């Protein structure tokens, strides 16, 4: 039983088993690697669809940091916080907030509640306006929202708002390179997103002062928007108005007045305040008229 032959055969059997097991595992591992690559990141593989829930929680957490901890819980009235304020302040998000944001707690319910309010943040502030100290010199503290936004983007790469909000605040902090990287990553994950293209255009135009690239990106955003169905277009009119207004402004600054007027006309159709845009159109029309009319001569009558 203990002869060298037996040991040799056992060793051979083990080798065959190992080889077979490895051959069986290899395709499975390959499939796992592929799915991991497709899913985009480690969190998606680990948590599946629940990662989106966590991502949303971290996005809200970032907004809580934006308010320095003064934020409603599930037990409070959160009508004034339905749209995160840090997203609302980017100017590219349709707000669903109503009610008084400063008094979501209401009057104290009893003495324990009244006493407890001395130990929690009890005043509505925004980090970009100085936070609890009201000191505008510390408004750069808005960077504190970034860890949660980064985590949120990692957990849910399909959430476009996370990229646009992150990029907006990075831009406000003069971190243009980082904002560019975030937007390109967002575009990689969501190639049809006109919101990300819009934010990318703002980065090129306002931070890099690159008119050509900004125009290209915004025009691409318009094309992506127009490719949507009617209902989706109707639901996202604000962003279209923003894109076209910015395009109009860009063309106006570049001296292409007729083109600028076209964009403002397009913006007017989507706008809830067409009167304001009409004023800009009128101003452009005056400029065009001034350019086309003959120059006044100083001839003596």
């Amino acid at each position, binding site marked *: 039983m203990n002869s060298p032959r037996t040991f040799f055969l056992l060793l051979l059997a083990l080798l065959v088993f190992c080889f077979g097991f490895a051959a069986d595992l290899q395709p499975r591992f390959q499939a796992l690697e592929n799915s991991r690559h497709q899913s985009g990141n480690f969190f998606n593989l680990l948590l599946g669809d629940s990662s989106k829930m966590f991502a949303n929680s971290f996005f809200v957490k970032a907004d809580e*940091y934006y308010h320095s901890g003064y934020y409603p819980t599930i037990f409070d009235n959160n009508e004034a916080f339905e749209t995160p304020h840090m997203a609302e302040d980017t100017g590219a998000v349709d707000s669903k907030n109503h009610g008084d944001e400063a008094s979501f707690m209401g009057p104290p319910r009893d003495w324990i509640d009244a006493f407890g309010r001395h130990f929690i*943040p009890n005043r509505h502030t925004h980090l970009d306006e100085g936070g609890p100290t009201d000191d505008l010199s510390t408004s750069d503290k808005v960077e504190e929202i970034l860890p949660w936004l980064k985590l949120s983007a990692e957990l849910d790469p399909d959430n476009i708002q996370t990229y646009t909000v992150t990029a907006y605040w990075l831009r406000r902090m003069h971190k243009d390179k980082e904002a560019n990287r975030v937007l390109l990553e967002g575009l990689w994950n969501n190639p049809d997103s006109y919101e990300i293209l819009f934010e990318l255009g703002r980065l090129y135009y306002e931070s890099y002062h690159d008119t050509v690239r900004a125009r290209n990106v915004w025009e691409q955003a318009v094309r992506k928007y127009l490719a949507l169905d009617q209902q989706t277009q109707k639901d996202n009119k604000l962003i279209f108005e923003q894109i076209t207004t910015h395009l109009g402004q860009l063309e106006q600054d570049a001296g292409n007045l007729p083109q600028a007027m076209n964009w403002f006309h397009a913006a007017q159709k989507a706008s809830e305040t067409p009167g304001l845009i009409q004023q800009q159109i009128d101003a452009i029309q005056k400029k065009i008229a001034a350019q086309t009319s003959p120059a006044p001569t100083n001839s003596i009558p």
Partner: protein
Amino acid sequence: MKNIFAVAGVVIKELYRRKDFYVLFILTVLICLIMASVNIFNDKQIVRYLKEICLLLIWFSSLVIAITTTARQIPAEREQRTLLPLLAKPLTRTQLIFGKFLGCWLACGLVLVCFYIFFGALAASREHAWPLLNYFQAAFLHWMTLSVVIALSLLGSLVFAAPSSNSTICFVIVATIMCVGRYLDTIAVTMAEPFRSILYVFYFAIPHVEIPFEMRNLIVHDWPLIEWKFIGLDALYLLAYAAAFLVAACLVFRRKPVN
């Protein structure tokens, strides 16, 4: 008083001989340092997420140390058969209970000093500021909260059969109060009688240990100091609950057979 301090001294010595504190402290330090090493958009000034994680770990660690240390005090004396010889000395049962409480409470105070020094150093490494009074307020109320937790665990150790069940029950009670204690009245409003009244009674009867716990937000987000009178009132409120639990523990222990 001398007897109480003698018992308390033994409890403190026991804490630094055991590994609980060292393990939890090293874990807290490691987790915080790993979190601090994460690169967030090349910004080295971001600190609030670190402060939040660190404070949460400090609260968790201190609760674990307070509950587990207290829960095994009386059962261990009984198991090792040292309770009877101890009470044969000129030491009353009440003194023993107070000595155990004081020992655990002071030991937790020492633990908190270590944790809060680390927290301050971690925050200062990024913020370059030492709001010492704010940290003192947070640590002081934290310590006061632990007095309630320790007194509750001591009472539990005389009521429940095993230290493990006592620890679990105390931990669940404290964690529940910290999570939803503040909102029990809001929940009560939505309920029908008699549950509404029962919940209201609970709301007013429980020690609101969530008040110092929620104070973390003020520290994390650099809010100004709390008025000292409110700190004093909250400390008194918590000490009253600790005293009530201690008196209850003394009453239970007086009728309890020691062998």
